[in-house]
């Protein structure tokens, strides 16, 4: 019964979103203000309906209601509760339901943010948002109904793909979708601005927090997915340039660019048309990502439960929203009042460079991801574009960006002084050089790029710290040498200044982690109990191989003891092969031992009849910094959001003219 009500609620959401999309347009023609106000309650209603539908499906999964097709295909009574819940979005239908749930959540959120978004803009945003919701709910109801029944109901389900039975994967999709789908608000703002034909600093200030929320969640989601792939897929890499990974990376890069261009727009009333275009492109890339993952066109780690027939529907949605919004852009953009030009050497000049490099980097990822597909369609020639392509295209475009980051922060708005900025960053250059040289000296004969990478990371972190430091010290007449005053000023800096510095330092931390992988080592051996395999400074000894039983799997586990080359004990690590009888599938479970921010990674190979095993051991120096850095970046985004000026729903205050001696507002 609950399942049918859930299905009904979804249909109701379809109708409500249609009301929400159509009524404001009608109101705009008839001038009926009351009719326009329908959008807000409709957004809340849509969200409530979809939430109910989602809860109904969750109930079916938790209660193991095997009369529901979706539950049969993805659940099992013996499955632990957490995976019964995460199994709701561990499949196509459920994950699309989560997608629209988050879409509706953002819609309801905008409807509630009455103070921070001007009424006409808000109504238009809700209208655009509702049209996206309508089309995607229609997609679910017509092609991917999660509530379909099956008769007769089987006694047991097929279980969830064991690879997806993992705590990391339980939270990865919701985080990722909060990011992906969150950009729909930026998109809706852009389209609303085009409809209204008006775009100004108020618009930029209104859209910024939403972009920042989406960006922060997307950062977390990508990091979570990367960590999951690292330990669950058992081959020890943290990024594979897999099409699905690229699908989430592209909106992230474009979103990063958008985040920076809205700052320019808010402060300097420039880059307006570009910002609108970027907002459209960012969400378009999110849609392309959804298409790539959900259409099954690309073979990939993530292409579970994909169906090409659905691809056609999503392709239609793509054409509608990307084509539609770009046409609207082409038609309306010339009517938007252009912003002014500005000096190349200035904060805004640096941000334009940031945008240029980010967009170029995004374009290389786009080409590398979609070119093989296009080529196969046109010529039937199959190619694979792997890490060498991206290392050769993406990395050279990302490196200049890393150099610019601290510079951009050190330059003033309007007219910057590059020599003064370089002088302020002198300490960062010097310390980074020391880090690089020391690292190179300690690991002489090792990889060249790794010490260089460490230097880059150090430069970014120190550059961010210097930014806070020099702003706290002050400029000109207000410059202070007193540490107490400096501290008080640092505490008094806007949260967004701290957030920016933190996020940029996070990038530096990620770079450190990536650089560390230059020194990664591995060992491979066939072992009998007592046998040893070495990787880097560590040696693993196989103690024994034995069976172990989990709730819904049986595991053959290799128990290993780790020591340093000198013989000091480090700890134990266990890696196993898990056999899931429900799916008759075997999955390797890697074993991890964390030492500081480095990890030792063991992966079990074949277990031979004579009791010997294949074992691969990796030493991954600094690897945890990659994900810690991403967490720091997201924390920086979160910190910025708590800034008085950024709070969703905070009163909009006209910015007072700052006295010339004061620190320039971020």
């Amino acid at each position, binding site marked *: 019964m609950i399942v049918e009500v859930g299905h009904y609620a979804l249909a109701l959401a379809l109708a409500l979103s249609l009301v929400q999309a159509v009524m404001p347009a009608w109101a705009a023609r008839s001038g009926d203000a009351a009719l326009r106000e329908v959008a807000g309650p409709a957004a809340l209603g849509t969200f409530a309906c979809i939430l109910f539908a989602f809860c109904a499906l969750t109930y079916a999964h938790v209660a193991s209601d095997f009369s529901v097709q979706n539950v049969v295909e993805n659940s099992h009574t013996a499955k632990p509760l957490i995976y019964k819940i995460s199994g709701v979005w561990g499949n196509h239908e459920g994950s699309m339901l989560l997608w629209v749930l988050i879409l509706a959540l953002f819609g309801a959120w905008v409807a509630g943010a009455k103070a921070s978004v001007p009424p006409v803009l808000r109504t238009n945003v809700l209208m655009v948002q509702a049209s996206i919701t309508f089309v995607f709910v229609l997609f679910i109801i017509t092609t991917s109904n999660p509530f379909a029944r099956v008769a007769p109901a089987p006694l047991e389900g097929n279980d969830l793909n064991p690879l997806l039975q993992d705590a990391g994967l339980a939270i990865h999709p919701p985080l990722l979708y909060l990011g992906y789908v969150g950009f729909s608000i930026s998109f809706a703002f852009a389209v609303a601005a085009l409809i209204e034909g008006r775009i100004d600093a108020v618009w930029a200030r209104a859209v910024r927090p939403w972009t920042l929320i989406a960006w922060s969640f997307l950062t977390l989601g990508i990091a979570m997915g990367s960590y999951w792939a690292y330990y669950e897929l058992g081959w020890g890499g943290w990024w594979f340039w897999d099409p699905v990974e690229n699908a989430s990376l592209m909106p992230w890069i474009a979103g990063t660019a958008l985040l920076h261009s809205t700052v320019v727009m808010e402060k300097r009333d420039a880059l307006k048309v570009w910002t609108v275009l970027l907002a459209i492109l960012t969400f378009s890339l999110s849609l392309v990502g959804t298409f790539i993952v959900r259409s099954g066109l690309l073979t990939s780690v993530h292409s579970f439960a994909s169906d090409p027939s659905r691809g056609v529907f999503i392709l239609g949605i793509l054409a509608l929203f990307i084509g539609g919004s770009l046409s609207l852009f082409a038609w309306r953009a010339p009517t938007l009042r252009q912003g002014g030009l500005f000096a190349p050497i200035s904060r805004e000049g640096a941000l334009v460079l940031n945008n240029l490099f980010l967009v170029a980097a995004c374009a290389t990822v786009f080409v590398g991801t979609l070119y093989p597909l296009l080529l196969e369609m046109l010529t039937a020639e*199959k190619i694979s574009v792997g890490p060498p392509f991206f290392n050769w295209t993406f990395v050279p475009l990302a490196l200049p960006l890393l150099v610019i980051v601290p510079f951009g922060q050190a330059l003033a708005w309007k007219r910057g002084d590059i020599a003064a900025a370089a002088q302020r960053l002198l300490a960062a250059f010097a310390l980074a050089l020391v880090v690089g040289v020391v690292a190179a000296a300690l690991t002489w004969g090792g990889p060249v790029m790794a010490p260089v990478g460490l230097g880059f990371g150090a430069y970014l972190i120190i550059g961010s710290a210097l930014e806070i430091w020099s702003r706290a010290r002050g400029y000109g007449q207000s410059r202070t040498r007193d540490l107490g005053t400096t501290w008080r000023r640092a505490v008094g800096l806007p949260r967004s200044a701290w957030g920016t510095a933190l996020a940029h330092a996070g990038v530096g931390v990620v770079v450190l982690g990536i650089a560390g992988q230059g020194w990664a080592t591995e060992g491979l051996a066939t072992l009998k109990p007592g046998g040893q395999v070495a990787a880097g400074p560590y040696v693993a000894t196989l103690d024994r191989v034995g069976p172990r039983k989990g709730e819904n799997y049986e595991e053959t586990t290799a128990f290993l003891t780790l020591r340093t080359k000198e013989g000091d004990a480090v700890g134990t690590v266990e890696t196993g092969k898990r056999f899931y009888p429900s799916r008759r599938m075997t999955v390797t479970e890697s074993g991890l031992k964390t030492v500081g921010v480095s990890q030792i990674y063991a*992966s079990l190979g074949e277990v031979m009849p004579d009791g010997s095993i294949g074992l691969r051991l990796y030493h991954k120096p600094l690897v945890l910094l990659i994900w810690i850095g991403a967490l720091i970046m997201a924390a920086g985004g979160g910190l910025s959001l708590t800034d008085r000026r950024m709070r969703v729903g905070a009163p909009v205050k006209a910015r007072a003219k700052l006295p010339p001696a004061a620190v320039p507002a971020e």
Partner: protein
Amino acid sequence: MTRKSRRLILIASCGAVLALALGLILSAMSGSIVFFRSPAEVAAQGVPPGTRFRLGGLVKDGSVKRGPDQNVEFSVTDTNATVPVQYRGLLPDLFREGQGIVAEGRLDAGGVFRADTVLAKHDENYMPREVADALKAQGRWQEGGGKETPKEAVKPASADATLGQRSER
């Protein structure tokens, strides 16, 4: 600085970065792209030794020989032609005889494919898309127990195929 020269600088820097990106993409296209070949294509066209490519097909029944120190030899076939493969490393969980796989590596002078990566999919019925297409092209393999007509669109072999495991040297 005049408005004109500001605009010029903006346009020039846009042009420079985009030209850089384009140049990088083009040079990467010519250098770091890996083609997919079936054993029949290898036999017919003769891939020169040392050229990196992806070899896809079925692991031939009875061909897997495990050597010491995690060395393994097997043959990849599309039933028309067979290519011997050498690999050192852990094989994916679903690697077995009769299973579809994709291996990446190079041919040596003796015509043996030296793989540094072996991919298999995490599904009993799985066949890598490239392999399925290559076999279908020869009419050797049909999807869904022979219900398929030749005109049917190319699609992944299994609705539930997850690229589960990859082993790399």
